């Protein structure tokens, strides 16, 4: 639907309201433009023309073009307030979140508190269910925005915001951080996958599992490196000592579609390229360049890929 694709009841309300305002705006625009063009055509100065009649004003007209816009705006105001409550209903008095989303420079932390699942940059939800999101920020301001699904919510460090989210149809929806948040604001993209409810349950069960740690080969060497090369100070992997939340949770990294908040598709080559030189790919990123050798990169990547 014009003006943008909508995939939730909330965004449908916004789009409908936008169209209403757009119609009013276009009508006013046409009146003004035609008025100006008509004058330009009809009242163009002719050679030898005497001075035109010196009209100083007209009270009824003034009252008219004050009152009519005012009435239109009262109508718009009523629609606005009604739509606000549909698009953004108040959270319950004692809210328990289905998801907790935390904005970080420049990635999204996504937590499912009931299932004990942590992931990053990619949200999965079931269709047709209204979920309550708790919105937080870890460092600077960010803004959580899925254009086809819900209103924008700024993420403010130290303050909590709430958002209702629901999706009509299964599919992948793209989103982004909308508040300028520093060097890599552009690559703080967000991806939401809506599943049919049973499919979603499968996904959640799989994410809730603690993967077995490898014991042989490159993967085992990678696990070792992960502890030694400080990765563990920033990244969590379930079933290991690493529980830090400075960087994205890597437990089920292999199941994610993208890397580094939408910058790269999650392929073996891209994962290696990222570990080798994160700053070349995402200048300014808070993931340090640890000057890993090719062999170390290979072992770490193999480890991360074998985890699910």
């Amino acid at each position, binding site marked *: 639907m014009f003006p943008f694709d909508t995939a939730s009841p909330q965004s449908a309300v916004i789009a409908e309201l936008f169209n209403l305002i*757009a119609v009013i705006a276009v009508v006013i625009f046409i009146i003004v433009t035609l008025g100006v063009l008509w004058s330009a055509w009809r009242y163009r100065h002719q050679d030898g023309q005497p001075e035109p009649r010196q*009209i100083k004003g007209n009270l009824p*007209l003034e009252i008219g073009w004050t009152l009519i816009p005012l009435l239109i705006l009262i109508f718009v105001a009523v629609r606005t307030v009604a739509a606000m409550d549909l698009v953004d209903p108040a959270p319950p008095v004692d809210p328990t979140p289905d998801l907790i989303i935390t904005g970080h420079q420049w990635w999204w932390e996504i937590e499912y508190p009931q299932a004990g699942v942590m992931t990053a940059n990619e949200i999965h939800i079931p269709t047709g269910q209204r979920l309550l999101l708790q919105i937080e920020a870890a460092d600077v301001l960010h803004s959580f925005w899925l*254009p086809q699904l819900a209103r924008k919510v700024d993420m*403010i460090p130290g303050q909590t915001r709430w958002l209702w989210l629901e999706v009509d149809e299964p599919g992948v929806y793209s989103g982004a951080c909308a508040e300028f948040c520093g060097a890599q604001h552009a690559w703080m993209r967000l991806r939401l996958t809506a599943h049919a409810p049973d499919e979603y349950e499968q996904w959640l069960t799989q994410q809730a599992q603690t993967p077995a740690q490898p014991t042989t080969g490159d993967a085992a060497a990678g696990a070792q490196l992960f502890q030694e090369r400080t990765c563990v100070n920033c990244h969590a992997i379930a079933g290991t000592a690493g529980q830090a939340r400075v960087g994205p949770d890597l437990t089920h990294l292999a199941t994610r579609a993208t890397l580094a908040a939408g910058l790269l598709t999650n392929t073996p080559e891209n994962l290696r390229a990222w570990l080798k030189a994160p700053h070349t790919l995402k200048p300014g990123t808070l993931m340090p360049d640890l000057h890993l050798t090719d062999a170390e990169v290979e072992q770490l990547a193999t480890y991360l890929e074998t985890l699910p």
Partner: protein
Amino acid sequence: MSQIPLVPESEIPLPRLRDDNGLLSWIASIDHKQIGIMYLLATLFFFALGGIEALLLRTQLARPESQFLSPDAYNELFTMHGTTMIFLVVMPMLIGFATYFVPLMIGARDMLFPRVNALSFWLLLFGGLLLYFSFFAGGAPTAGWFSYVPLSQRAYNTSPGLDYWSLALFGTGIGTILAGVNFIGTVLVLRAPGMKLTRLPLFVWMNSVNSVLILGALSLLNASLIMLFVERQFDMRFFDEASGGDPLLWQHLFWAFGHPEVYIMVLPAFGMISEIIPVFSRKPIFGYAFVAGSTVAIMVLSYLVWAHHMFAVGLPRIFNIFFALASMLIAVPTGVKIFNWMATMWGGAIRFTTAMLFASSFLILFTIGGLSGVSFAVVPIDWQTTDTYYVVAHMHYVLFGGTLFAIFAATYYWFPKMTGRLLSERLGKWHFWLTFVGFNTTFMVQHFLGLMGMPRRVYTYPADMPGWALLNLISTIGAYILAVSVLIFVWNLVVSWRRGAAAGDNPWQGWTLEWATSSPPPVHNFERVPPIRSHRPLYDLTPAERTNQAGWSAVSQEIPQPTYAPATLALGIIFVLWGLATTWLISAVGLGLIVLALQLWFRQK
């Protein structure tokens, strides 16, 4: 061989501003006309810088995932583009026009405080240079023209750019506030006999209302800048949630300045349009009292709408509703203006000079910006469109399609008065059409980009978003067309200043007092001023009054002494500020300059 030059010099010898026109006479000048011209030249220079920045930004965005600029460079450039255009171009350019024309239009010899007037200008110039110096002092600011905390706090931004940003804007802010005081005083005290407040030319009226707005808004900004600076330098934590502060406090303070600022950049432009459309339609402004009164309504309301910039932060519902209603309300007095301008054209005898082309297309383009502005007052639409390219499109329709078009119109209208020569109409037509096409090509598509989900302030965007690459490319092409149009404009200024057709005193048959003196006016502005019976004094003149200046009254022609005190004082203030970002030694030099300047200031009478 013939000795005759190919291009003959103009036959009419033009009066000069001063006998010795050397550089020093400009630095010491306290003549509002020279200062006005310096304002316009300085802001034109900053306009070129801001324009080049915009071209670099658009070049980066021409293609998805482009590597033309690094993220940091992009962030520096968009911060500087916004800061430059707002603080160093649009606002002071309008002030520059007012500095030149307000005294002339009210029949005064100069501003009320000529030396303060010079001080305002030098603070702007030196402050602007201080801001740009940050490029050489470790990097320009990167937190946007709004510098939201916490991103602008030291923990997230250690570059000195942000210190330069707050100090430089503080310095130019002092100058702007002083200009506001000066305008109010000038209009209250120095009006020619017969010019009641209800007979003020609308440009003067709107500039006065605007000055009241400046006093409140810029004072607030300067106070907030101090808070930001001491927070960064001395760890004061006004805005730190964990220490009992609030990051939203900065947003409230900034927008309580920022929204009035929008009108500070628009009201004088409304004034220009209110002068130009009547003259070229050969009719008085339709509904003078309503156009004037709606300006006051806008001024009052503009202090009550700031949180419409903050609908997405999740303020309490009742706050959002209040600010939504106030923001909708402000559309009413704005609409009243548009309709009155249309009615002024209606039934006129319209001459489409370049000035009138810009002024009448202002009506159409500003209406687009105004209508998209109303859509932000509709809170759910704001939740969708805020922080996207839809806002970028909106505010350029207001500030470029609106204010800048009015400034171009005013330039074609008043250039003859300032220089004695007409701008070339042929180049002017090229300038107009290229600007019109380039402007709409650049910014119309940005509405759609925003609705399609493109956030603003991104240094690049993914290649796989359908339609984004094409629309961005179109926008960039438009920006290049605009660049060409600006080059033509500057070329027109240069050639017409040197050898444009002589204009005479009143080339457009205008009605306000600036047209009752020579072009350019003599140092003391007027020998005598005509009797004033309405807001169109020259229109009301009887043939006798017109030809022999019968009944014209003599005005003061006393010329105050030029002085270096204002320029020195401004330099001293900016040095003190500069030292705060670097070493106290520079501040000490600045203090010395201030002492010196004050001595000069108070010794001369």
